[in-house]
């Protein structure tokens, strides 16, 4: 289902989605290292943030078709769409490598052991939504 959603709303949706992802990881890490948050409050927060994350994901990426477009095989897209998607992937690449290098370097410096499963899952999710986010953020019409 491809809904027409204005670029401003899409940008707000993308921002909310990414902030929710950061919050989710943050709360997990706070619980893990037992810093300033009780387990009950932490789990409630995680539940709330998860709902926001899923809702904003559906609103921005599923309804607009950005997810479909960024994950479609190039054979099924027309020439203009291919260029738009590839351009979005190019920007995503830059953002993704900067972000992951910071995380890897941060963990290497802090010597906090391996990157845990929540961060790994968040990075994987991010790798998938970044091209769709760039599309939702930059394209006037989706």
């Amino acid at each position: 289902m491809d809904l027409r959603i204005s670029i401003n709303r899409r940008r707000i949706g993308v921002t909310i989605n990414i902030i929710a992802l950061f919050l989710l990881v943050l709360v997990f890490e706070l619980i893990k290292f037992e810093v300033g948050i009780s387990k009950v409050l932490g789990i409630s927060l995680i539940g709330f943030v998860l709902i926001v994350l899923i809702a904003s994901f559906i609103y921005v990426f599923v309804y607009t078709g950005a997810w479909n477009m960024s994950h479609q095989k190039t054979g099924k897209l027309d020439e203009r769409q291919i260029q738009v998607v590839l351009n979005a992937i190019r920007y995503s690449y830059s953002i993704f490598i900067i972000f992951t290098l910071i995380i890897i370097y941060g963990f290497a410096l802090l010597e906090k052991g391996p990157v845990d499963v929540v961060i790994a899952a968040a990075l994987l999710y991010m790798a998938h939504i970044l091209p769709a986010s760039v599309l939702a953020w930059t394209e006037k019409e989706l």
Partner: protein
Amino acid sequence: MTRILSKKKRRVAVMLNYISYVILIFFFSNLLDNYQFIEIAGLGILAILLVGTFIYLYVNINLWNLGNAPDNDLGESQIKVRNESYRYSYIVIATLLLLGVICMAIAFDAGLWFPSTYEEGNAIVWGAILLTMTLPSAIIAWNEKEI
């Protein structure tokens, strides 16, 4: 003066470039406890190979420009080639990252080698920087018939 390299030469240089870095790091972390002459010589050769293949591939050749130049400096077909290489790079990096995280988690639990010191962490980070900076150009070098 811009050089032109055959596809075969480019592929060999790309492989040597990455392999020399991996062996260099292996040397650093495992073999350099006593700093014997032979080890230092080996390290020097690997470092020269790493820098040499980098210069051979990316200096005075259109590859680096093709992989990193802004759209305005490239033609339409070059932009197409460049963007396609970023797509492959993105897939490679995301997959490597995921595999890396899984390997780290398994190694940590099973007591296998795991980058735990500052030097080892640094080696991984510099490797990641080398890989991510050069990968789009390396993919162009690997795939394109003529550059």
